[in-house]
């Protein structure tokens, strides 16, 4: 009887852990797909797109997750194939310095103006 109980507990634990790993993979897959641009329906994410390109990307991302690749590695793979543009979240590099730093500069510039006005 005791053995039966242990077996039931083991069965439940292994099944739930498998389920949670599948769920984690699905969450990760959706997160990645929402962050990839579709090259056919430009302006739509791969997650939202029904194009053939998007469906192939969905399969590739699924395959890469199952192969054990991390999120960053999958983005890197896609960047190598299609360039930085394919990822919604652009990397900080020489081409995107202005994109990342301009809002910060404008924020400080505006802040300085407000500070000067208030101190006057």
């Amino acid at each position, binding site marked *: 009887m005791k053995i039966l109980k242990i077996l039931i507990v083991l069965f439940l634990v292994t099944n739930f852990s498998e389920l949670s790993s599948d769920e984690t993979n699905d969450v990760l897959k959706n997160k990645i797909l929402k962050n990839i641009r579709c090259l056919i329906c430009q302006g739509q994410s791969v997650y939202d797109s029904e194009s053939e390109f998007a469906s192939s990307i969905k399969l590739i991302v699924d395959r890469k997750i199952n192969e054990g690749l991390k999120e960053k590695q999958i983005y890197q793979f896609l960047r190598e*194939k*299609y360039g930085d543009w394919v990822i919604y979240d652009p990397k900080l590099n020489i081409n995107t310095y202005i994109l990342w730093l301009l809002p910060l500069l404008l924020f400080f510039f505006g802040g300085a103006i407000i500070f000067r006005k208030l101190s006057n």
Partner: protein
Amino acid sequence: MKNKFSLFIIVIFLSFCFVVFYKGLNNSNTYTPKVDEKKKIPTFKAKDFDSDNYINSDKIFDEKIFYIVNIWASWCVPCRAEHPLLMQLSNNQSIKLIGLNYRDNFNNAKKFINEFGNPYSRILIDKDGTLGIEFGAYGVPETFLIDKNKNIIKKFVGPINQKIVNDIKSIIK
């Protein structure tokens, strides 16, 4: 004096914005990945069209010659237009053509080849389009020129034309 300086700064800033947005008007809204970037060919395993066996990419690109990888499908109208040019290229001894049959019905693809001729030394089946993704393709037809060191040196999006064929011939000479 101070007001004049502020006005000057504002005018400069607005002119800068105007130039940036005006130049932006002429830019295309459609993004196209770079076509001249040198990349290593991907390693993959694919189903052979004729034998139905799986082959590794190192067995496909095993000779020290130029290769062309052409993505095609029987349902693709521009593929029909470029096919005679591929037939023309296949007569060249210093290049081998590999076809990637993209998301196609096997019988239709066979009919296409029987009707228009087979320029490919080998055809690979890409049933779900994932092999095309490994090459960095996003549509059909697309053509990749691979050099003797197994680097993709050029990518042609859309059907090839006589000018592209001449360019390829001058590269592989």
